[in-house]
């Protein structure tokens, strides 16, 4: 009896996840379509894609030994003919609405074409490769930052909620407004102080130039470069984050059942774990996911300030040389990133909160 019940629960759970994944993916589709439309309002996407097509046809014909003896004019004419045929075949001369669907499909399958100017470190001109090459650095830096903030906020938030009204508590409340300044801005100040004035930490970049080759020194060097960007994010989030958590935990610790637990003689550590933290987990996880989502966005400017070779800096470079395929590709990747985060959030939520779990039975 027990096993089939839990079987049912698992099945229900999976169904729920699939449903959520689908509805989230629909939103990704909408976001991608929006991107396509916006990008093409100035005809950019058209130019890119048609340009791609022309180049690939051109290359194909010129590399084909059958046409070796042809004169340049004849080759050009051939390419042009072939190009027009392909345009018709692929439907690139249809009205925008239809074309946009094709573009959409390309975008969603991450067929993002070739960059106009940029290329990846490995030499690839494919936008997808360029972006994927940069993605890990961004994720590494900003996921670390978000996690560190998360842990700090909860730890200090709990502490403050236990000592609320104290001088320390009042200090945090008073300084909360300092968090309105984004991390990248604090970063500028940190660079001025520690790099420009004191010369103890690097201005930016991921590794020194030249970088150490041994794994451990290389790793340490990278850590050294992470200090300022991480610190800027931690400082920005610090006071408000801890304060919000503290208020949050206060509200949760004034619940009746907490008092009951105290009356029952549950030791304080256990009360904190089972009666304050655990019920607070679902909203806490939500906050984590939201801050992760925000971190992807904030990454763009922070990376530009610190010259951190990730997705954000790529965005800035793409802007300055106006490499539109890359910009479009980045937007699509971001949409996927966000969608993934939301989906994971939903999954976590349903695991933790019994109220939602129960819906599967």
């Amino acid at each position: 009896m027990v096993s089939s019940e839990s079987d049912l629960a698992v099945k229900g759970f999976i169904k729920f996840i699939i449903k959520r994944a689908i509805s989230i993916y629909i939103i990704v589709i909408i976001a991608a379509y929006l991107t396509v439309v916006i990008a093409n309002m100035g005809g950019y996407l058209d130019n890119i894609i048609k340009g791609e097509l022309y180049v690939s046809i051109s290359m194909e014909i010129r590399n084909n030994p059958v046409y070796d003896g042809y004169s340049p004019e004849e080759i050009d004419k051939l390419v042009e003919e072939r190009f027009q045929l392909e345009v018709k075949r692929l439907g690139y001369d249809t009205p925008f609405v239809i074309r946009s669907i094709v573009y959409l499909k390309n975008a969603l399958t991450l067929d993002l074409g070739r960059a106009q100017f940029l290329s990846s470190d490995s030499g690839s001109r494919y936008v997808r490769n360029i972006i994927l090459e940069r993605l890990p650095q961004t994720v590494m830096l900003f996921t670390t930052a978000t996690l560190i903030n998360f842990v700090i906020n909860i730890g200090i938030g709990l502490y403050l909620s236990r000592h609320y009204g104290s001088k320390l508590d009042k200090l945090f409340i008073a300084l909360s407004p300092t968090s309105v300044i984004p991390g990248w801005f604090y970063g500028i100040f940190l660079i001025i102080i520690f790099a420009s004035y004191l010369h103890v930490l690097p201005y930016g970049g991921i590794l020194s130039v030249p970088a150490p080759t041994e794994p451990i020194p290389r790793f340490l060097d990278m850590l050294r470069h992470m200090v300022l960007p991480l610190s800027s994010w931690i400082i920005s989030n610090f006071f408000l984050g801890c304060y919000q958590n503290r208020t949050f935990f206060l509200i949760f610790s004034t619940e009746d059942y907490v008092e009951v637990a105290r009356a029952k003689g549950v030791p304080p550590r256990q009360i904190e774990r089972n009666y304050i933290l655990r019920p607070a987990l679902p909203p806490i996880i939500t906050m984590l996911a939201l801050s992760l989502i925000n971190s992807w966005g904030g990454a763009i400017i922070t990376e530009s300030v610190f010259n951190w070779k990730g997705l954000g800096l790529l965005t800035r470079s793409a802007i300055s040389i106006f490499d539109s395929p890359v910009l479009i590709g980045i937007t699509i990747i971001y949409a996927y990133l966000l969608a993934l985060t939301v989906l994971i959030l939903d999954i976590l939520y349903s695991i933790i909160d019994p109220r939602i779990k129960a819906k599967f039975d």
Partner: protein
Amino acid sequence: MGSSGGDYGLKGTLRELFSYKSGIFGLVFLLLLIFISIYAVFTIPYSEAIALWRGQEGVYLENPRNAQPSWITYFGNNLPKTIKIDSSVENAEGITKIVTQVPGSDIKLMKIKYSFEYDYDAFPSEFNIFFSAEFNESAPLLKIYWKKPGNTTQIKLLDYILKSKNDKLYLSRNQKVSEKLLQHTIDVLGTHPAIILPVEMSLFAVEDETMNSTTTAEPLKGIYEMTIEGTVFGEGSDVDGRLIVYGKIHGLAGTDHLRRDLTVAILWGTPIALAFGLTASLTISLLQLVLATVSGYYGGRVDSLIQRFTEIYMILPFLPILIMIAAFYKFNIWILLIVIIILSVFGGGVKSSRALVMQIKEYQYIEAAKAYGASSKRIIFLYIIPKILPPIVPGLIGSVPGYVFLEAALAFLGLGDPKLPTWGKVINDSFSEGALYKGLHYWVLEPALMLVLTAFAFSFLGFALDKIVNPKLKEV
């Protein structure tokens, strides 16, 4: 305890605001900002500000490049101010002009002597002469001489034929002058210097072995003399020169790489930032309020639709899309504002206000109002909106800095409105020009501190307001 429950009169709120230190902070900063804005708008009209910022027609030609703010001298460094001596000015100090007519021709011999005191601990940044001359066919021939304090001998710097009536002689960049001064340095040192001093340093350096390199050279203090001996041809011809010894400090805020006085940007950045931030915040908050009310009150399909939109917005990558739009379409700042509003309107505020609307909707007095036949419009405007308006005010105020920083961020990325003197643009310029590497900290710090001031003004105010509007937060 329903003391401050529904009592949001302006006076009462203000009074309560003063009881909080953060409230006072915020208000003081805000008043300061408003004052600066008003000052900016009234002393430099908008069109003039734009023109100044564009720096056309050599508006800034007489400003030094990358100059520090003047008040930096209070902290020790005796940096030079810009010295300007104009021979065309009547009875100018430090000028002696002697004109001798050569008998029997229309040739005049001129000797203009410029003398000034140089008393600073650092070298000037540049050294130019701007001429204003009158002549018909033959341009004046000039010989330029230089005498350092204490020396009895002059150095001949240059033989020069004026190229136009308003010719500008950039002595710092003049090849011939450089070579002449290098020769002079070799004479002084007895050997080739380790590092060749730039023109403006050579002209002012103490004449000893310290001329060997830029790190050891020291400025010679005393009275300097420059003499221009000119031969002018033609009836009514004349030559006047405006000597400009560019300093390293300028104005309240210093200058940037284009010689622009940063005070313009700092001052005018204020009303722009305030206008941008407040407009964005107000519009978005109010629109969200309307959406929330419609969604919560009418429920049903409209509600679901609006909720769907809100969810979509949550996953839309706001910043990348904004960047994409700004990069492709290069809007000016106000269109950018509209784009930001469109991209934010279905944000999180809708959800929270909607929750409140749903709560209020169930209250008895709404039922009562419906019972006596009040129209939906009446209920919404008379009952619901007054209840949900106060809670959003703190958020409204508190989110202003976010939009100001957004604009700054876009400017930092190079997507800003290049015509407008905004703080973000200044930071963008400073970073592009490597201000931090060059030690030009003021260039970054000034706009940064203005941003901080703005941020704190609204943020502290918003937090204090929050405590007033949500009395529960006070107790907890």
